[in-house]
């Protein structure tokens, strides 16, 4: 068996890959759904209805899309330069932590100033958390996958420590949760009575900016070159280490903003269940989008609808909601294969 690189891949083919992967994943998971005793088509119908069937469902889906756009972008930016940042989960909490420190009363600014300042602070917190792993990779050759993964556990324990200590809300009835952020720090809701908040607009703006940076700036060009062939990039005189560090700072920063968006837009305060694995799901989002910043928006919407839809399906039909995680991870693996099939031709000889 041999793999032959295709030349001239039509755009339609590239766009077909995620569609094929998603269809394959739904088919592969049909057996698992059937095992739960619910007819497969009925279950998938309920899923679709739960995700997109009403205005309320749609708003819930978009609210769930928001953090996934951030973490998906974080993974896409890093993976494009072949920097394997698996620590978006930790960076999200780092961003949320700094917001909790600053946004619950310490900082007193009018809303027009407060929001940008907090966005920047959360980005800095996320970026700083990723600075360690990237420096360790560049100077000691320590694999960033392991360090970023381990940092996730460390940061979450730190959050738990602070929530039971200095950041604990005295009005929280003993629950480990932080004080809610002040009104000025809150990201305003987009519609009355729905949880959808302006973090979504921030996420869309960020996706657009990252896209422009990647196709229109020297830095974006260098980031792609480093990911494509590091040796060639170095040979061409690019500052590979500096590009790597910039990549890491941008990636960590975006993930940090996800923490701000979740605390100030969605939950109102920092708790230990702020993120049900958004950082890890972001990897799937990025891969489904083939690391394209605008594609991330679409794939995040898809992944969010699977999660929101599966919750609804679980409530009404009794299929365990973990099916969403299974479907999303199967579509990641299918995506890897279908991208391969698009890029290469398999020759059996």
């Amino acid at each position, binding site marked *: *068996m*041999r*793999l032959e690189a295709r030349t001239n891949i039509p755009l339609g083919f590239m766009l077909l890959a995620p569609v094929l992967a998603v269809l394959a994943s739904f088919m592969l998971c049909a057996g*698992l759904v059937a*095992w*739960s005793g619910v007819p497969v088509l009925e279950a998938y119908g309920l899923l679709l209805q739960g995700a997109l069937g009403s205005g309320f469902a749609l708003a819930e889906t978009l609210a769930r899309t928001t953090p996934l756009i951030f973490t998906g972008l974080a993974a896409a930016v890093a*993976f494009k330069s072949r920097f*394997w940042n*698996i620590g978006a989960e930790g960076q999200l909490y780092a961003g949320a932590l700094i917001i909790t420190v600053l946004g619950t009363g310490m900082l007193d600014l009018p809303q027009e100033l407060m929001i940008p300042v907090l966005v920047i602070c959360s980005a800095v917190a996320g970026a700083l958390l990723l600075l360690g792993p990237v420096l*360790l990779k560049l100077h*000691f*050759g*320590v*694999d960033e*996958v*392991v*360090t970023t*993964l*381990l*940092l996730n*556990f*460390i940061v979450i*324990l*730190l959050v*738990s*420590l602070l929530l*039971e*200590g200095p950041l604990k809300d005295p009005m929280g009835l003993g629950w480990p949760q932080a004080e809610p952020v002040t009104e000025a720090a809150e990201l305003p809701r987009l519609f009355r009575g729905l949880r959808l908040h302006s973090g979504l607009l921030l996420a869309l703006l960020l996706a657009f900016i990252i896209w422009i940076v990647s196709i229109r700036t020297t830095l974006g060009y260098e980031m792609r070159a480093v990911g494509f062939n590091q040796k060639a990039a170095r040979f061409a005189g690019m500052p590979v280490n500096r590009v790597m560090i910039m990549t890491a700072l941008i990636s960590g920063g975006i993930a940090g903003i996800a923490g701000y968006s979740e605390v100030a837009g969605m939950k109102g305060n920092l708790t230990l269940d702020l993120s049900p694995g958004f950082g*890890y799901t972001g*990897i*799937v989002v990025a*891969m489904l989008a083939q690391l394209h910043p605008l594609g991330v928006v679409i794939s995040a919407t898809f992944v969010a609808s699977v999660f929101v839809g599966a919750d609804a399906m679980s409530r009404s039909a*009794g299929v*365990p909601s*973990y*099916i969403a*995680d*299974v479907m*999303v*991870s*199967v579509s*990641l*693996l299918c995506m*890897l*294969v279908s991208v*391969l099939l698009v890029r290469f031709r398999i020759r059996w000889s």
Partner: protein
Amino acid sequence: MEWLEIFLNTSFWVAAVRIATPLIFGTLGEVICEKAGVLNLGIEGIMTIGAMVGWMTVYQGAGLWTGVLFAAVCGGIFGLLHAMLTVPLGLSQHVTGIGITLLATSLSSYVYRLILPEVNSPPRIQAFEPLDIPGLSAVPIIGEALFKQTPLTYFAFISVIVVAYVLYRTPVGLAVQMVGENPAAAEAQGLNVTIIRTCAVVCGSAFMAVGGAFLTMSAFNAFFFNMINGRGWICIALVVFASWRPGKALLGALLFAAFDAYQMRLQQLIGSEIPYQIFLMMPYVLSILALIVMSRRVGYPQALMVPYRKGER
């Protein structure tokens, strides 16, 4: 001097060896995969599914060893999936591994919930009992730690010896090392790189799954979500710490576990002056430190993470 007396305590050493067991299996499994040139980041998920399947098999009425066998087979299947994607297809080992972990973890949760829909406290099984080796277990302080453990712990120690022997003293082991160091040369010798790498990953993943099964069938007697809790990632760090040698992997796992057991006892001694989370962070911090310290002198397999395609340079 209470903090020193911990070392004279038999229960400390028993706990250290118990904590080390899943790490030994996991690290050993990862060593086998990486020796053949394949990084297996599926380890966290494979340990989780091993823990779930082993426990579930016994809960459904089968014997304990059948449970271990089923766990190993399941681990092997996920290893096969990882190998299929990364060896013949040459996909990114990082992303595929994370994908395997996400899949295996979520599948464990899904299947567990499907079979046991509404349980508030996790049901329990009759787990492995410690096996007393008469005479030797009476040795003061460390006797019980080494000779009064559950059968899976002995199995872990034996596995280390067997794997070390196979890797360094048999043609099969040399072939595995060769495809991890220089696959083109191995191919020239008439070895089938794809098959050897695939077998190594399957075999290594089976070990990881048994490590997971130890947790639900020996250390505890129930399955909890998130019970692996980063142990797989710690194993990845231990492989580097052990410079890819099975013997050193055993040593590393024991050292690590001793530290873990020690901090738990120290925590009880100190009380609540220092928040318990600081102690819980220690294993992860220690893993990162170990990676930094060892990074200068590692002799990693030359073809690690390099997919091999016949006839390409």
